[in-house]
């Protein structure tokens, strides 16, 4: 299986708990469960926030 988008990549952390852990303070005045997050997550390879539907040449399928 190949990863086509960031949400399918092993480096993508999109769960609410990991998202809030990556960004301290988010839960004070917002939420990782907010609809407007739209599945965004943290790319641990590039250390950037990325959309679930983004992609890059380094995509690797989640194990």
């Amino acid at each position: 299986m190949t990863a086509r988008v960031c949400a399918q990549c092993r480096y993508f952390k999109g769960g609410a708990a990991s998202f809030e852990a990556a960004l301290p303070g988010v839960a004070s005045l917002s939420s990782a469960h907010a609809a407007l997050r739209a599945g965004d997550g943290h790319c641990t390879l590039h250390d950037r926030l990325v959309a679930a539907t983004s992609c890059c040449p380094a995509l690797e399928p989640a194990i």
Partner: protein
Amino acid sequence: MSTVMTEAAPARTAGFWKTDDAWAVCIGLALVALAGLLFAGGSSLAWLAVTPPKWTSFGQLAAHFVAASPRYAAQFALWLVLVSGALAALGYRLRRTVPAFALIYALSVVIFAAGQWASAVTYNLEPPLLALAAGLVITNLGLLPRSLDEGFRVEFYIKLGVVLLGATLPFSLLIWAGPVALLQASIVSVVTFGVIFAAARLLGLDPRLASVLGVGGAVCGVSAAIAIAAAVGARRQDAAVVISIVILWAIVMIFALPFAAAGLGLPAGVGGAWIGTSEFADAAGFAAAQAYGGIAAHLPGAPAGAAEQSVAAFTLMKVVGRDVWIGLWALILSVVATLRWEETGITHRAGAGEIWRRFPKFVIGFLLASIAVTLIAQGVGHAAFVKSATPAVVAPLKNLRSWAFAFGFLCIGLTTRVRDLAGIGLRPMAAFSAGVVVNVLLGLALSATVFGAYWAHLGQ
């Protein structure tokens, strides 16, 4: 980072039922429906929607709690079932959310009662400010275990309050006032974003960081920051910096804006519009607007309903005027990031669907609640609505809204740990602060002069 202008392929996006918007809308509309059904059956939700009354002595207050203890017990049980059920659906553990909510409810009763003290206004003991201050002290002194954070979900409680708020605002008011709110909010948002972005670039900051700073100040605070950070592919650390700056400024503004508005003697609607233009996050803004409503209601010549006017003006300005456009900002900035900024190696598939995917869905619940109560009003006629439906339907929903907001205001403080926040950095702070100054002055000018007469008479 490059952008491919096409509709995004389906991905493992968070399901609707994993969002706090979904549960806030469902619970809020269920309560509105319950109120409507009980009214149709000749009954009312009022028994359950109890709140502490105005009091002048502890004996009076104690007598109320003794007499109304079954009502408080029933209300607590209802909230506990609804809240813990929703949080369980979001993935939180009952063994943590149940004690957390019990604590929130107990503290909210105390704060609610303190705010109802007849002399509270003399000492500026506005419940939102009390809740925030109490929460900040409790959590920053390390008095609670972090495990309870699973029940301290600020956004869920505030969104639930917003849906219930919809039931207290006639839909005709939203139609009448919406365009002006949209115009004022658009002017201030674009100018504020421009000032922050330009200042950040002049100070040598990365354009992605500059854009995240800009929307944090111009659109909807922390929520905007995380949405735009992902849309443009900003560094995680940059997003963390912006979040810290927004939280710091938002908390300052919760206390500063209501007292500044009071010092200027602004009518409640004008003050609410100003706060809606100049606060950064919904939760913080509702705290400030509700606090100012309480203050403005006691200003000389304040009309009946002044307290509600502040919250209504805030809602129109912030929720209708600013929040709903976050998807459009995301689309535009992701395209600009592709065309103008240095590549990051990440490709973002942006398209018009971005506007809907990032739409704050709780706003739909707010609108539906408003429509539902407006239909009830049309069904029974104006006179009967004022005489019977207002005390039986609107007033209980307003009380439940006050509880939901109280939970949220308390949780802002309970989840804000100063030592957890990222280092702020002088240049990002300076750029953001430049935008704050322009935003506050421009927002005041538009709220108090250009559209002043409009906001001062909102809903009258």
